[in-house]
């Protein structure tokens, strides 16, 4: 006997911000430079 819990997939916040052209602003508002961060 197993208990199944269905998972729903939603559009991610990153996708929403990207679609609205706001992703770069988000990085700035959070003082994050993901390219620099990755480096």
């Amino acid at each position: 006997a197993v208990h199944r819990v269905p998972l729903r997939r939603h559009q991610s916040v990153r996708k929403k911000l990207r679609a609205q052209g706001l992703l770069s602003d988000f990085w700035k508002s959070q003082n994050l430079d993901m390219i620099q961060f990755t480096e």
Partner: protein
Amino acid sequence: SCQMDQSTNEPLINYLDLTSKKPWQVFPRAPIFPLLWGATLSLWGRDQSSEQNSCFSETHPVFHPSQSSTYEEVGNRFSIQYGTGSLTGIIGADQVSVEGLTVEGQQFGESVKEPGQTFVNAEFDGILGLGYPSLAAGGVTPVFDNMMAQNLVDLPIFSVYLSSDPQGSSDSELTFGGYDPSHFSGTLNWIPVTKQGYWQIALDRILVGNTVMFCYEGCQAIVDTGTSLLNGPSHKIKELQEAIGATPMDGEYAVNCANLNTMPNVTFLINGVSYTLSPNAYILQDLVDGMQFCSSGFQGLDIPPPAGPLWILGDVFIRQFYAVFDRGNNQVGLAPTVP
């Protein structure tokens, strides 16, 4: 009196890519939808909070302890620090019901104060931790530990199947008490847990194409449903981005979608078995202004010693490989997912 964790300030932004949620109910209120992550069980909202962000109740259900006859206030303070936000709150206990499985006396963190917008913007309403007890904020017993202790599951195993369907309307699944062979092909390969906190395992090698490029002498990784991308040490990931042809674009690494067919596979050798991600698996495809946009599924994240460095095999990996988490034998089972 709140014990703030001062140990790290890395910008933890994994929630940005969160896509999987599940219904969860704390008796007797409406369903809420948490993120599966770590070993914390936290609710964002609590009605007694005067400090709570005013936008909060518009985006998340608010928890009303006074409306529950089974609620008990434990009263311990807890704090969770994130790179783009934090929350503090108190520990309470109540029945927690997940798809008909009811855990009695489950302790959880009730968020009282959430500076910033992180948890206001996030679609999830809480965190359902699936790690080991040592990882739990506030020292609470995780949900699955209570499920085992209360004999709610036949086997001390849970499993995660993430559908690769980009629309995501169908059949991703968390299974308590066992696993479902219809979700994977072949047999499960069992990998011993090397450290009981996250689900940590040993990696033998990482290959790009047919060449060993990272982890020459072995390294450590965690299998983590709470991490959306596939993370590794930042200087390694930079090399990996270059190897797959990803370049910086608007603050993230992206590739030309037309190049997917010529990009290399990335293979993780684990316990002698190869787990290969094709470009279609590790590149995230999206439509922006009607144009296809392809971002890298790899992300740099430096976890300092003694916990790190760690590679994190997040949803990008788990979508391709069904993951079984065995608390009885402290091992992780992996097998190719059936699409």
